């Protein structure tokens, strides 16, 4: 049952569960900034059931105790050896651990006391062994098109070399495999391909040069460290869609997963952990709504990912209201938001593709200069089958000749003014091949309007001396606009936005697309009465509860969502704005508060800071009442200020009586005769003493006791007896040089108590070593330098 507010934490017995900060950071036991709301999605009942994922890599250890139960042989194959068993090849270096590690991120079993917990721990997981041998176009095509009616999600954490000089992508067969999967996979809903964005930390690679991650068919996933900072290996890219956590610097927490030989690991994961994490999250969304198309999934990711604490200096808000960056795409994925969006999602309208061919006149690209080309696009308004008004992906297909490809940087600015960098300079790319019909892709214009002036900029910045005789040339470029001719979002897709950080990108909510008669399955939250669509907003009647969205759509839910309360049998109504849970809609009917607010335990109101007379409890949730005598306090009985008329005694407040009296609970009574002021009866409760008395450990005495000395400095206007230094038995002042007598075993030597084993003039019978001293003297041993130490510092050279 879903309990909102994170008050009840999920716990698994898997040994690494407590360290999986990226899954349950919100339980406040880890000092992380934000998680991906995985637990929130689980609490809504989604754990990946009936979703099949495969990892395209170097195999999968199907016998691993964390994977065995979820292993799916129909989602697995050994392309390298052409057989059905994808077990990795074992060698001394454990080279083929990669696939098994990725698989654990997705679907490691929960609660089996072995290692870790996968994001979709009830999903089916398979593996394709395809990287442990010669990889060819055919090998890739076989892997990408394995069993597309059975497998829902393909996750790949590999690609062309990230050496900063390679430009490569899918060849003809792999390209067909992608298109085939998109068109026919998952019963024509489209296979989901998740890809790890590049890993170019050492070579300053740019992920636009990787045709796999740069494809509209792949969901390109980038990584962020625990701190929200850019990991050293991350490649900036306009085609990145979203981000998940992965490893960062040595001080950042790591990702934990299954390892080869039935082990568990938290070693560096690089960008590779991010794709399977995203695949796991997408599996949760597919469980929430199995009818999502491949484009629905991308739309949901765009709408639910959030910038949060991710650190980048290029965050910008595009004209459709989406915050986007080259490092993180639309931000950190949010599993709970995705499943909520999936539950009530209405399929986006058909994709239109509009190819705008610009003029073919070649333009010279001179060193240290820029070439601009502006194209006025209509979005193919003259062709209803290709007309694009609302953008999704934008591809620039470009042919450039150039003497040094690495010196080029390319930018594209949309009609709404959103500028994306399609290519950055690459120090190591000395190629003279230029780009031949290479497709650069950007997601940054998602939701914007297609029509208007598109501006292409090419910058040539020579990194080294180059011949000026053969400058580069922009030979041709064309714009491929993907999107829809009608508003992609049904008004139904616009709830809930309570937790969203961005405003709705919907520009014209009246522009809906019609609902046809529906014969498919109803959402699990619909009662037997029926429904007119697959979502929880399509139910004719609800099984449990319902709430109303902003546009008055009724959404069926198993429990009232955060910020709502049960009015009657079925209806959820909104709490007061600051309440997380409540018993009514008034501001003083809160049971718990939203983040940033504290519940006043007396008034049940959510407030931003505790008032006087209240303190914030240990969990920083509730303002609790101080003891009645305190004005302010840190705990119930630990006053820091007192109510008027009371005085602070230590951490307690008591009634103030006239000098020489104390309050016994009913009235003021005189202090003991020796006390000038006191906190209670008797000589032991003195605060200050009357004249002729000195304060000694809370008592007033006429002369200081043994072990105390009279301190003539006035403390609060009174002389006091202070305890002697620990080395003295008695003393005349503070410190260890004012002793007047010493404890047993010590002797007094000019005000200092020294250990009694020291001889005195080598004659005096000391308590332990007198005989020895005599011996020293008799034999003139002090004249022997080595033995001087034996007789300590009392020897003379005369003996």
């Amino acid at each position, binding site marked *: 049952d879903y309990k909102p507010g994170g008050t009840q934490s999920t716990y698994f017995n898997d040994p690494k569960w407590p360290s999986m900060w990226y899954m349950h950071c919100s339980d406040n036991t880890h000092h992380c900034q934000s998680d991906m709301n995985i637990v929130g999605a689980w609490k809504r009942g989604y754990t990946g059931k009936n979703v099949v994922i495969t990892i395209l*890599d*170097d195999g999968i250890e199907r016998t691993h105790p964390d994977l065995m139960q979820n292993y799916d042989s129909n989602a697995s194959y050994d392309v390298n050896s*052409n057989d059905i068993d994808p077990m990795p090849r074992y060698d001394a270096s454990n080279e083929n651990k*990669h696939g098994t590690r990725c698989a654990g991120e997705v679907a490691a079993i929960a609660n089996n006391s072995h290692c870790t917990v996968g994001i979709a721990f009830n999903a089916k997981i398979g593996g394709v062994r395809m*990287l442990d041998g*010669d*990889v*060819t*176009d*055919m*090998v*890739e*095509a*076989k*892997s*990408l*098109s*394995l*069993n*597309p009616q059975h497998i829902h999600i393909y996750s790949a*954490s*590999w*690609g*062309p*070399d*990230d050496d900063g*000089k*390679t430009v*490569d992508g899918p*060849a*003809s*067969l792999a390209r*067909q*495999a992608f298109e*085939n*999967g998109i068109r*026919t*996979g998952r019963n024509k809903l489209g296979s989901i391909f998740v890809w*790890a964005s*590049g*890993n170019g930390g050492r070579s300053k690679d740019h992920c636009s040069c990787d045709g796999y991650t740069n494809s509209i068919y792949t969901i390109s996933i980038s990584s962020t460290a625990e701190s929200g900072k850019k990991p050293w290996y991350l490649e900036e890219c306009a085609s990145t869609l979203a981000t998940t956590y992965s490893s960062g610097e040595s001080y950042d927490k790591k990702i934990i997963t299954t390892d080869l030989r039935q082990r568990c690991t938290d070693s560096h994961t*690089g*960008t*590779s952990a991010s794709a399977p994490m995203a695949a796991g999250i997408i599996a949760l969304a597919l469980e929430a709504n199995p009818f999502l198309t491949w484009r629905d999934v991308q739309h949901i990711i765009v709408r639910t990912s959030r910038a949060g604490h991710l650190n980048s200096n290029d965050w910008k808000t595009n004209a459709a209201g989406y915050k986007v960056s080259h490092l993180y795409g639309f931000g950190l994925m949010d599993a709970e938001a995705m499943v909520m969006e999936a539950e009530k999602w209405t399929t986006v309208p058909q994709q239109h593709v509009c190819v705008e061919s610009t003029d073919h006149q070649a333009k010279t690209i001179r060193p240290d200069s820029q070439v601009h080309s502006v194209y006025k696009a209509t979005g193919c308004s003259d062709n209803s089958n290709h007309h694009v008004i609302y953008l999704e992906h934008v591809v620039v297909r470009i042919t450039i000749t150039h003497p040094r490809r690495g010196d080029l940087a390319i930018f594209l600015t949309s009609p709404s003014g959103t500028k994306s960098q399609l290519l950055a300079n690459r120090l190591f790319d*000395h*190629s*003279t091949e230029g780009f031949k019909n290479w497709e650069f892709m950007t997601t940054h214009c998602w939701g914007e309007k297609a029509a208007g002036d598109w501006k292409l900029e090419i910058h040539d910045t020579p990194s080294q001396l180059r011949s000026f005789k053969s400058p580069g040339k922009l030979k041709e470029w064309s714009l491929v606009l993907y999107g829809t001719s009608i508003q992609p979002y049904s008004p139904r897709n616009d709830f809930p936005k309570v937790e969203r950080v961005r405003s709705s990108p919907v520009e014209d909510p009246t522009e809906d697309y019609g609902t046809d008669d529906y014969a498919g399955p109803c959402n699990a939250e619909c009662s037997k009465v029926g429904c007119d669509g697959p979502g929880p907003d399509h139910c004719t009647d609800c099984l449990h509860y319902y709430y109303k969205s902003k546009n008055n759509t009724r959404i069926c839910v198993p429990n009232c969502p955060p910020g709502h309360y049960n009015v009657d049998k079925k209806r959820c109504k909104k709490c007061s704005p600051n309440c997380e849970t409540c018993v009514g809609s008034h501001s003083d009917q809160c049971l718990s508060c939203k983040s940033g607010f504290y519940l006043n335990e007396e008034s049940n109101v959510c407030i931003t800071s505790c008032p006087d007379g209240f303190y914030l409890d240990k969990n920083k949730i509730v303002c609790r009442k101080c003891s009645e005598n305190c004005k302010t306090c840190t705990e119930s009985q630990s006053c820091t200020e007192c109510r008027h008329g009371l005085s602070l005694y230590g951490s307690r407040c008591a009634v103030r009586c006239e000098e020489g009296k104390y309050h016994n609970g009913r009235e003021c009574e005189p202090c003991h005769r020796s006390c000038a002021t006191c906190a209670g009866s008797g000589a032991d409760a003195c605060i200050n003493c009357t004249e002729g008395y000195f304060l000694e450990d809370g008592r007033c005495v006429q002369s200081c006791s043994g072990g105390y000395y009279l301190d003539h400095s006035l403390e609060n206007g009174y002389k006091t007896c202070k305890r002697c230094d620990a080395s003295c038995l008695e003393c005349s002042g503070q410190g260890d040089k004012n002793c007047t007598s010493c404890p047993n075993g010590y002797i007094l030597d000019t005000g200092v108590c020294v250990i009694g084993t020291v001889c005195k003039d080598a004659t005096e019978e000391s308590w332990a070593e007198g005989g020895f001293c005599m011996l020293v003297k008799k034999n003139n041993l002090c004249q022997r330098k080595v033995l001087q130490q034996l007789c300590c510092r009392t020897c003379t050279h005369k003996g």
Partner: protein
Amino acid sequence: PACRTRMYTNHWAVRITGGHQEASRIASKYGYVNIGQIGALKDYYHFYHSKTIKRSVLSSRGTHSFISMEPKVEWIQQQVVKRRIKR
């Protein structure tokens, strides 16, 4: 600039109309083994030729090359090794 040489393998991708049996018949006629359909790509088959060098910088020439002249063979491509890196 680093010289990147193409590395040809003894595997071919072939597009043949007429189904699996027809593909196998044509394969055996020219000394290939039909390994099977390439994933879910209809009419695309994986052929293997054991008497061709496993890896070569030169594309393969020989009587087996005449397979492309078969009327039902629409396309054939000797597979080239592609450098792929785990991330």
